[in-house]
């Protein structure tokens, strides 16, 4: 670590923070994945978490996931809120007995000294109605600030997790703000350099926040979004059916769980956009969430019939 150049220091560089976390979790045996190439609301939606959390196979992965929460857009004016932000996601299945120690090790790696900082595990039970998932765990506090979510998955897509996976989610921007001591996300030093070479988070994302806020709240084509929601829902069902094992054959594996799940993700994002546009009433809201959950459950059931889900080839 000491040999690293100063601009890679996680306390000075946003990307330094990401790279440090990746290195740390790689050392713990995680596969380091790249972000899923679809719009999702949180790192949990990545099939490397949602689907891999199901079934008996062991699995360790870590990745950054750009996450979109259209409703959280503030036209770049709020120093703490974004409609597009980064989560760093770690999933370990089954959770090792020393997961808390591993987590604290990751904090140490990014420069949080536990003899100076007050680290606390404060009850926070996690639930995702759209994924039919829940777990127990904590918000992890550093000096009174929530820096991560720590969850032991109990159920995903309506299925009991067997074995249980441990999930860690770091809110990267917030963590970086704390490490860098800045008051606004947009002031974060992205590349750790100074002077003319310095690139801030604002340089990279402020324009996007402004444009997407306009899109999410004012201009997103709701008719198209409704249509895409229905299309994604139908496609998901269609792919699930097409992938079903053929009766009378020996191979009882499902053949298209992943493509079907993509459509579930898509439907979920369409719903989030429609929600931000304010065109879904309170009563309808519940029914949309339910429709996405049904897709997630069906995808989970299909996944459990694949090799990844534990079925022998």
């Amino acid at each position: 670590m000491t040999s690293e150049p100063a601009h890679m220091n996680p306390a000075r560089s946003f990307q330094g923070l990401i790279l440090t976390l990746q290195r740390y979790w790689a050392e713990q045996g995680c596969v380091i994945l790249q972000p899923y190439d679809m719009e999702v609301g949180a790192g949990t939606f990545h099939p490397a978490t949602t689907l891999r959390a199901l079934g008996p196979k062991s699995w360790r992965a870590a990745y950054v996931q750009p996450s979109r929460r259209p409703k959280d857009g503030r036209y770049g004016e709020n120093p703490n809120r974004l409609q597009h932000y980064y989560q760093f996601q770690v999933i370990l299945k089954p959770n090792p007995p020393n997961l808390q120690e591993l987590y604290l090790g990751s904090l140490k790696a990014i420069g949080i000294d536990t003899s100076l900082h007050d680290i606390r595990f404060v009850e926070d039970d996690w639930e995702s109605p759209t994924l039919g998932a829940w777990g127990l765990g904590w918000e992890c506090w550093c000096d009174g600030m929530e820096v991560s979510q720590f969850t032991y998955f109990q159920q995903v897509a309506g299925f009991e997790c067997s074995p249980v996976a441990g999930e860690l989610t770091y809110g990267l921007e917030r963590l970086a703000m704390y490490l860098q001591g800045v008051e606004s996300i947009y002031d974060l030093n992205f590349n750790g350099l100074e002077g003319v070479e310095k690139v801030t988070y604002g340089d990279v994302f402020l324009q996007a926040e402004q444009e997407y806020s306009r899109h999410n709240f004012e201009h997103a084509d709701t008719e198209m979004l409704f249509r895409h929601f229905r299309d994604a829902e139908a496609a998901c069902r269609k792919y699930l059916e097409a992938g079903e094992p053929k009766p009378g054959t020996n191979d009882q594996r499902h053949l298209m769980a992943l493509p079907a799940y993509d459509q579930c993700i898509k439907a979920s994002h369409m719903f989030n956009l429609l929600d931000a546009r304010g065109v879904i009433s309170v009563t309808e809201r519940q029914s949309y969430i339910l429709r996405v959950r049904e897709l997630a459950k069906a995808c989970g059931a299909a996944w459990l019939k694949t090799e990844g889900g534990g079925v022998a080839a």
Partner: protein
Amino acid sequence: MPDLLLELFSEEIPARMQRRAAEDLKKLVTDALVERGFLYEGAKAFATPRRLALHIAGLPVKGQDVREERKGPRVGSPDAAIQGFLKGAGLASIEQAKIESDPKKGEFYVAIIEKPGRSTPDVLAEILPGIIKTFPWPKSMRWGAASREPGSLRWVRPLHSIVCTFGPETEDPEVVRFDVDGIGSGDVTKGHRFLAPDEIRVKRFDDYAPALERAKVVIDTDRRKDMILHDAKDLAFAQGLELVEDEALLEEVAGLVEWPVVLMGSFDEAFLDIPPEVIRTTIRANQKCFVLRDPNTGKLANKFLLTSNLIASDGGKTIVGGNERVVRARLSDANFFWKTDQQVKLEDRLEKLKAIVFHEKLGTQYERVERIAALSKVLAIGVGADPALAERGARLAKADLVTEMVGEFPELQGLMGRYYAMLQGEHTSVAAAIEEHYKPLGPSDRVPTDPVSVVVALADKIDTLVGFWAIDEKPTGSKDPYALRRAALGVIRLVLENSIRIELSALIRMATENAAKQIRSRPNALVLLGQDPDPTNADPHEIDEFLDVDMRVVIADQRSLRLEQGELRADLNPKDYTTLHVGPKSRADLLSFFADRLKVYLRDQGARHDLIDAVFALEGQDDLLMIVRRVEALGRFLDTEDGKNLLAGYRRAANILRIEEKKDGRAYNEQPDLQIVNDQGQIEEKALAVVLDGAKREAAAAVEAEDFEGAMRALSRLRQPVDAFFDKVTVNAEDPALRANRLRLLNSIREATRTVADFSRIEG
């Protein structure tokens, strides 16, 4: 005598569950021991974020020996019987049995079976795994590799290790060995996560507690609370400030640390422009910190106290700095909400209430506000409030639900509305009503006294009750998810503590009518009368008709509706329509719910339940204030000599009547024939007849004038003539006509008392 030490060491247990879990652990283990005959001298349980611990002092080393004598067959019985006896008693040969004799049976065998008491560690090793596996956590989870198997251990968070030792003070205790899903018991625990993470070997409670203390763990929650409170007060005092005490927060904070270190932080004074409740709520809810005030002005100071779990190497500077950052960000948010909320007037927010569903079957908050406003306007007249102010208060009462601040902190509902109302220049009573219409929130909460607040609070609660009664969502047993008992109690306290006269049944009818009208006017609603199955009969009825029967409503976006020849038609399936119980039966049921709640309330106030019953047994009792006044007057009357004797006289009359009416198979409820009294009666019955008539009329008039003391006084005049009557007059006269008339006289006594209460319900 030996002690037990048990510690269950886990990952962080939610603060709110710790105290209960410690108590459960103590109860489960001591109950299981007592059940097996093991008595103990004392037990105490402890909880920290990472452990539950139990100390049981003074347990016996082993259970009691049991000696049992078992009778066997007679001496000389067939071999099969002897062998069976030996097997059953566990004897090797018949020589081990005693021979006893009995004059009837002669000589027979007796086996002495001695069961030595089991060693306490064995028994503990047997009961503890079961208690751990079925521990009653409110929420529990599985974890790790073990969770591959079904039925793996559940705990509140992963359980890591178990300490279980047993032994006397003088010797080294032994480890009680058992295994729960792969976790073996031992004598090793750990100290504070950061300050003393190494393993600690413990022997018994006497060294366990101090060893942990050295390892920066205080196992006793109450001691941690004391430490926090003491340090917090000291720190506040040093700054010339006063701690704003908060017991619930203290309890929670004590459950978040094993070694409390209280530190003081501050925030920009400019934030003090935000209402103090908002500052306190923000800092409390999000940061779990205490706030401070200036003892001279009572105003909040720009300081807060945090409780960390660390003796930091820099004295806490970094921790304070971090917390100040977060508090600053939170207060900036709060300040932003406070400022933006003020830019929209409360009345302009009402539209948004249309998007907030109050209850799926009862519509939106907007509709609710309409009903409460209509009800308030009428109620105001009875309560003596300005109807325009009451209506205004009701209209704005829920507007703050759609402010940013209440969206963020729902517990500030009402209060924020009041602040925003004051800022936009509303009448102080209107502003007060916005906050106070939720009150009283429980039996000990303050009851509002401003007439406008009282009106809106009543309207809000009556509307809630009527609504949930209409959709048949009443409290059952211990289930009361909509807090309807609390709402009814609220109505009772509002009425009684403000001495308000209201006819409840009329009020209920009015609120029901409001709701029914509103539902009928929904553009997508089809309303059917009673059980009428024909949807073509939908709607033309008057509201009065709905209130005579129940109404059924079909909402048009339900699947059962279709458009047919330009008209909405419904294929009625009971699943598709909502029956609204607005008819007389449901309303009477709600009224009797009030009667029940009033009884509970009066009983809690110390009133005699039989007197309450005696008053409720009369017809048409729906004026809460009058009911209570009558119960009080009756109680006072029965405490007097006149009252006691009249009650005795009443009972004598009622007893005789019961027996004679049964014998004759008829009732004597006609008026007595005064001619017979006059011609044949004794002087005492003449006197009674005269007084009865007068007293009854007088009592009735007094009741009419709501002078219950007067009514009682009128009745007390009956005492002497009734006593004299029973002294001198034989009811069962030879002459049947005379007898019948005397029975009618007795009936008149019964009737006279009924003007104030049903005396048959009075006990004692």
